């Protein structure tokens, strides 16, 4: 049983009140929605893709501080990256940034919802627009996140 005593440090509280890249993109190249049926967190992401790079990304929705902080960090990491690099993002890249590696099982879903939405979004984009036959691996990975 891990302790959660140190989870709510300043950075998390700060992100929860002032999330990065929060909002919508009109007519985005990629958009995806998912929610966490167990707690009601709900996230939409929007991305524009230019020259195989994520030229812009925003997220919207509601969630707990952990969800908002992780979503913020996720968008910060993704912005400007190539699709290939985005595909490689692992959960610890997000969790590590916020010191959440030992998060308890129930809360991990709050932390990784936006990453899941990102991966499904990219999958949908690759499968639809680029006819990428390897996209399924990404879908598998997304569904295995938690």
């Amino acid at each position, binding site marked *: 049983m891990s*302790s*959660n*005593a140190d989870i709510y440090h300043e950075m998390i509280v700060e992100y929860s009140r002032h999330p990065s890249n929060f909002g919508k993109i009109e007519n985005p190249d990629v958009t995806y929605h998912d929610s966490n049926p167990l707690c009601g967190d709900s996230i939409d992401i929007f991305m524009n893709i230019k020259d195989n790079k994520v030229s812009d990304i925003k997220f919207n929705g509601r969630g*707990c501080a952990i969800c908002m902080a992780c979503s913020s960090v996720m968008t910060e990491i993704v912005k400007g990256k190539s699709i290939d690099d985005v595909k490689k993002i692992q959960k610890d890249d997000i969790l590590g940034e916020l010191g959440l590696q030992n998060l308890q099982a129930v809360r991990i879903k709050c932390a990784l919802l936006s990453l899941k939405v990102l991966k499904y979004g990219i999958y949908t984009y690759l499968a639809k627009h680029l006819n990428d036959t390897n996209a399924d691996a990404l879908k598998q990975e997304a569904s295995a996140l938690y």
Partner: protein
Amino acid sequence: MQTAISVEKIREDFPILKRKVRNNKQLVYLDNAATAQKPIQVINAISDFYTNHNSNIHRAVHALAEEATEAYEVTRDKVAQFLNIKDRREIIFVRGTTEAINLVAYTWGRQNVKQGDIIVTTEYEHHSNIVPWQLLTQEKGAKLEYIGVNDDGELLLDQLETYLATGKVKLVAISQMSNVLGTITDMAEVMRMCKKAEVKVLVDGAQSVPHMKVDLQQIGCDFFAFSAHKMLGPTGVGVLWVRKELLEQMTPFHGGGDMIREVHKYETTWNDLPYKFEAGTPNIADVIGFSAALDYLSNLGMDFVRNHEIEITKYALEKMSTIKGLKIYGTKDISKRGGVISFNFADIHPHDLATIIDEEGVAIRSGHHCAQVLMERLDVAATSRASFYIYNTKEEVDVLIKSLEKAARLFKL
């Protein structure tokens, strides 16, 4: 007359209350609306069954089968007594409230609800009293309507009157106590309207039966559902009660052993009530364990239970009202609510709040509480919920208050 029952004495019957959690913090269990803790009497009843009497029931003549069958059926008698049910054959054991309501939707519902009919439920229902009716009305081309909730968390029963006036309502499915707001439904008024309109009423008693005296003959409804696990009993047991005249007309739900009279290759006749609706090996040990829970509550008396909860809830409401930024949902009138307090604390998300105070040993629930329609009505994504039972103390409420103050510090409120 009961002389003063000591909560300290009650607590001794619940071994889990001695648990330390997280950083060796004393457990303060305030998630009773989700499931109650079990007294040693219930735990022992289950162990005793498996240790001494375990057998399948109803069909064999050997000694263990006889003992098991009798113990299982005695529970049915105790349920009848507990809820003042006239005929034990109206009592069907199921897994829980959810299965009970679905059973009605699949049998009575499929038989009686037609295109254009209306089923009425409320904005403060648990998903288990909404989704089965969504599935049914969608299948049949019928309509689902909701009785609204006012800002005090009370039902707008005028709306029920309006729905009933259409003459199209087939069923009103309503909970006797909200699991989020604690509101106690005015069943007398609901029944008065529905009887006048000759409309059937299903009552979700999942939150009422554990916490207050419930008399089914007095209510006068047609279907009643509740779960054992919320009233000191084991998981995996619930009760569906159906008025005999209706039950006799209902087609079976599950097919299988025990629910049949004679099976031939191409035709089958059904067993007597209630067995017609108890197909397959039931949850024998836990039904027997539930007996001990009913005994425990009967010994305390439901008046004691209700009074104790009123006292704790009043104390908690008073204390919580003094916390700046803390918003409590539902009525403040203690006579109209049970021991459930839903709240939000400034801009702290309920999940974060629950995690923070869990570090202090305090177990509350956060989320939509399987009541997303109500969350939409309250215009929140989630709430935090503290809910009390017979073993909770004012000292535990104090620990809750303290842990809320810690959350305020972390979030710099």
